[in-house]
């Protein structure tokens, strides 16, 4: 008997359309601020207009008298509500300085946007109107905006710390110290460059929104929040507010993007919870975009001093890195760890024997920084990939050639780097060669020879970036060695219901990534059931109590693998039931197409549906077997996963205006096995444009008084469709050997590769004019000014009349 199965041979790897889409496309999906909560009070916050100021007095009387206002509080009024300061989960060193940080400032405001008072009113409009009536008297103090100025301690921001330096974190390799100095002294070539990672605003399209709904008599409280981390938020809120954890439920309705900015525990979440408990009423808050610009974390913010030493053949022998990191005014959830996430990646994809990394991080009077797509890894990749181009330029060889001389070779994997981490698998040369082919690298080089002549006004440039992404966060023991306060495992439950429908419960918390679709594909493939018979439950701590959420390209490589492992356990249990009922030996059964069959006796078989029902009735189960068909797995990955790839960008730079036109962008990414190539491509598209936006458009512009001058979407240049190109994608597939699916992760790869590829292309276009670096964002003004500064003061140069 042949079982006819008209499903594709494997669901895994197909371009299955997303099950999430119909609700999102029709307006049926509910985001947090769509929730209807009758009787809810609306929270609004008065925020400091000063970057640094002593709070002398807070007069709430006019606000309290305003229509609709129920209550108003200063920071001092609320101190009794906090069991602990706001959490920082990553004390990277034992002596790290961490100022006490409360949801509403007491005594001092330390950045523009720092909350100084709150109002509760019966409508959002009434709450916001009343904020204008709060009279706060400030004694302005000097702002600290510049990182080196901050390090000098000329002005100390947090009096109790006595310094602006939060920590110094070193990655020193034993025995390298003296040797590295000798290597630099003896090197045929050295490069020493400074790169600036400008501050960026994450700008998820959905601003944050929070609602806390108490059950005053029942004792429980539910927090709705537009967050990436419902599980972490639950634990941290319980600790910070002294709420018994079992009485707190955190759930996220649809979440409109995060990019790291919603990987946090924010003042507004704690305020809604605390005030909902105090007032015994629902309390909600919707962030306005202008607030989002100053009150939601920023990304990047580093000065990178990068040095390479190479031998006469261009073989890189040593990397020395010094980072000055901008923490902002306070340490948010993982602020201090962001530069450390990049610390292992400054050798990039190259076989470099000596390594010396040190990061010093300082407080400034600016919005706190924290995770933003890539989080430390785009910064590291930018520095090494820019420095490699610098070295190639110095040696007078093609950067592609120099990269090929230094790539970790395919046969060196698994490769243990001098930093102690083991890279699982890779083939950098294959990815680079595929990218070069798609970009017509040789052809562009040939066109350059004819186009970039003296006097040319439109100069052609091509730039490459090859990257590693350290993701799949993370092996818990490695996190322990980095002083992170939690683990990096993920939980999954796979439950076969009596009618052979499947419930999958995951601890991941999607916000646009399509986990419901991808996870159902994994289970469909493992259990031989139709994807539409699988439901994926997530993002509600009452339904999925265990999990560590979604960030760091971890969801598939940790959470997806946990689901596959749970399926294996379900199959193991089902096999016991099948063996019992078929009166066969377990070893003689094979599972395929959703049924167990006795080897050699194809007529003796039992489908999963029958087993599920048998497990439910429990009429005839093996002795001692619990009557259910479900399994739970908590998976702690043995290693990070290491996606990689090469991006190549071709640009034309208008020398007269400084305008950069991207002619082509090629991204070749290898994320191991692809569960759904359509979703993989979508992640790359979005990531690349975010990285390209850092290179060309985006910067949080602060004045010397610490005011954010572009705190809106009218002024901060999130690119529109008309600002960016279509993309050319290629993929190589090098499965990870560390997990059964062979998957690695793709969420951040695009962002990691893009910024250095774009800037390398611009510098390449202009190198004939003496330009060796361009600051990000490479706006027309910046590019034009860079060209002007580089052109020797000879009147004929560049003049083609």
């Amino acid at each position: 008997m042949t079982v006819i199965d008209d499903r594709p041979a494997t669901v895994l790897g197909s371009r299955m359309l997303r099950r999430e889409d119909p609700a999102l496309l029709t307006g049926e999906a509910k985001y947090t601020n769509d929730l209807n909560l009758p009787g809810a009070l609306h929270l609004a916050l008065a925020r400091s207009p000063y970057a640094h100021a002593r709070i002398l007095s807070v007069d709430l009387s006019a606000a309290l008298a305003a229509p609709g206002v129920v209550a108003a509080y200063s920071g001092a009024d609320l101190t009794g509500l906090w069991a602990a300061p706001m959490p920082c989960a990553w004390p990277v060193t034992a002596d790290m300085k961490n100022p006490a940080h409360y949801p509403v400032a007491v005594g001092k405001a330390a950045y523009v946007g720092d909350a100084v008072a709150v109002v509760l009113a019966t409508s959002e409009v009434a709450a916001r109107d009343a904020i204008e009536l709060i009279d706060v008297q400030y004694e302005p103090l000097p702002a600290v905006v510049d990182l080196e100025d901050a390090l000098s301690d000329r002005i100390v921001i947090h009096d109790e710390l006595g310094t602006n330096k939060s920590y110094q974190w070193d990655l020193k390799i034993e025995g390298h110290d003296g040797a590295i100095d000798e290597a630099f002294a003896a090197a045929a070539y050295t490069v020493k460059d400074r790169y600036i990672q400008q501050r960026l605003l994450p700008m998820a399209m959905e601003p944050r929104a929070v609602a806390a709904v108490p059950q005053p008599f029942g004792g429980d409280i539910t927090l709705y929040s537009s967050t990436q981390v419902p599980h972490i938020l639950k634990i941290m809120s319980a600790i910070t507010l002294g709420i018994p954890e079992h009485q707190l439920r955190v759930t996220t309705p649809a979440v409109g993007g995060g990019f790291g900015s919603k990987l946090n525990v924010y003042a507004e979440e704690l305020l809604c919870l605390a005030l909902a408990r105090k007032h015994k009423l629902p309390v909600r808050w919707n962030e306005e975009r202008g607030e989002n610009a100053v009150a939601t974390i920023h990304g990047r913010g580093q000065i990178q001093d990068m040095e390479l030493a190479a031998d006469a053949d261009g073989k890189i022998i040593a990397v020395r890195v010094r980072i000055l990191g901008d923490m902002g005014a306070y340490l948010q959830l993982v602020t201090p760890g962001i530069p450390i996430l990049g610390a292992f990646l400054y050798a990039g994809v190259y076989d470099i024997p000596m390594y010396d990394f040190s990061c010093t991080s300082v407080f400034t009077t600016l919005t706190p920084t924290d995770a933003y797509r890539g989080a430390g890894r785009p910064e590291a990749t930018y520095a090494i990939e820019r420095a490699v181009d610098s070295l190639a330029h110095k040696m007078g060889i093609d950067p592609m050639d120099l990269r090929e001389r230094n790539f970790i070779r395919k046969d060196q994997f698994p490769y243990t780097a001098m930093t102690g981490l083991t890279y699982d698998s890779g083939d950098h040369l294959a990815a680079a060669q595929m990218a070069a082919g798609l970009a017509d690298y040789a052809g562009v080089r040939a066109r350059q020879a004819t186009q970039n002549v003296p006097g040319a006004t439109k100069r052609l440039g091509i730039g490459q970036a090859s990257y590693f992404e350290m993701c799949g966060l993370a092996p818990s023991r490695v996190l322990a060695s980095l002083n992170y306060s939690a683990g990096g495992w993920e939980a999954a439950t796979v439950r076969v219901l009596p009618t052979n429908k499947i419930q999958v419960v995951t601890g991941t918390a999607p916000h646009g990534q399509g986990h419901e679709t991808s996870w159902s594909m994994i289970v469909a493939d493992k259990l031989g059931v139709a994807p539409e018979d699988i439901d994926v439950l997530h993002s509600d701590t009452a339904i999925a109590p265990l999990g560590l959420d979604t960030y760091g390209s971890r969801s598939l490589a940790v959470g997806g693998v946990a689901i596959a492992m749970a399926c294996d356990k379900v199959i193991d249990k089902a096999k016991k039931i099948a063996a019992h009922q078929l009166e066969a030996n377990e070893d003689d059964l094979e599972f395929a197409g959703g049924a167990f069959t006795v080897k050699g006796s194809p007529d003796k078989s039992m489908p999963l549906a029958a087993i599920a029902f048998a497990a439910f009735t429990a009429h005839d189960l093996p002795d001692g077997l619990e009557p259910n068909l479900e399994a739970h797995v908590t998976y702690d990955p043995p290693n990070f996963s290491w996606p990689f790839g090469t991006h190549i960008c071709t640009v034309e730079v208008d020398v007269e205006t400084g305008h950069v036109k991207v002619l082509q962008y090629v991204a070749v990414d290898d994320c191991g096995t692809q569960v759904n190539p359509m979703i993989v491509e979508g992640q790359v598209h979005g990531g690349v444009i975010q990285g390209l936006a850092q290179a060309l458009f985006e910067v949080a512009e602060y004045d010397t008084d610490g005011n954010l001058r572009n705190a809106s979407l009218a002024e901060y240049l999130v690119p529109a469709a008309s600002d960016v190109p279509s993309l050319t994608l290629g993929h190589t597939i090098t499965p990870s050997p560390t997990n059964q699916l062979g998957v690695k992760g793709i969420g951040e790869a695009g962002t990691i590769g893009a910024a250095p590829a774009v800037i390398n292309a611009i510098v390449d276009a202009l190198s004939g004019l003496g330009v060796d670096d361009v600051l990000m964002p490479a706006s027309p003004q910046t590019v034009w000014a860079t060209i002007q500064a580089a052109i020797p003061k000879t009147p004929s140069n560049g003049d083609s009349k």
Partner: protein
Amino acid sequence: MKISVTVNGTVHESDVEPRTLLVHYIREALALTGTNIGCDTSSCGACSVHIDGEAVKSCTVLAVQADGAQVTTIEGMATDGVLHPMQQAFMENHGLQCGYCTPGMVMAATSLLKENPHPSEEEVRIGLEGNLCRCTGYHNIVKSVLACAAGD
């Protein structure tokens, strides 16, 4: 002020404060929360709806200005349980990820094709420049609109 607005084919007689924006009227008075708010500067286009068949950012219009108008929101696009061809094109081409910009993007894109039924890629990109997306990099949004125009 008393207004009469037809939204998704249903006439609504309402009494609104003169300062009420159309987007707030739609979301709060009519409970049609598919229209999203992404900014406070009329930059992002997430709140785009159709007024008398043309895409308009509903945060740039007062509810009273819509008096007598025919308004269509994202909830009015699918009919009889069938997605509008533009919604279908977005689904088939992975033109959305988090979905927050999507209702506005679909409204803007359908309006664009009404004006220019067979746009070039460049025309689609320029036509959608008032609508921001942070997830897709626009690649698949553009692809979706072109596919819808081609009747794929």
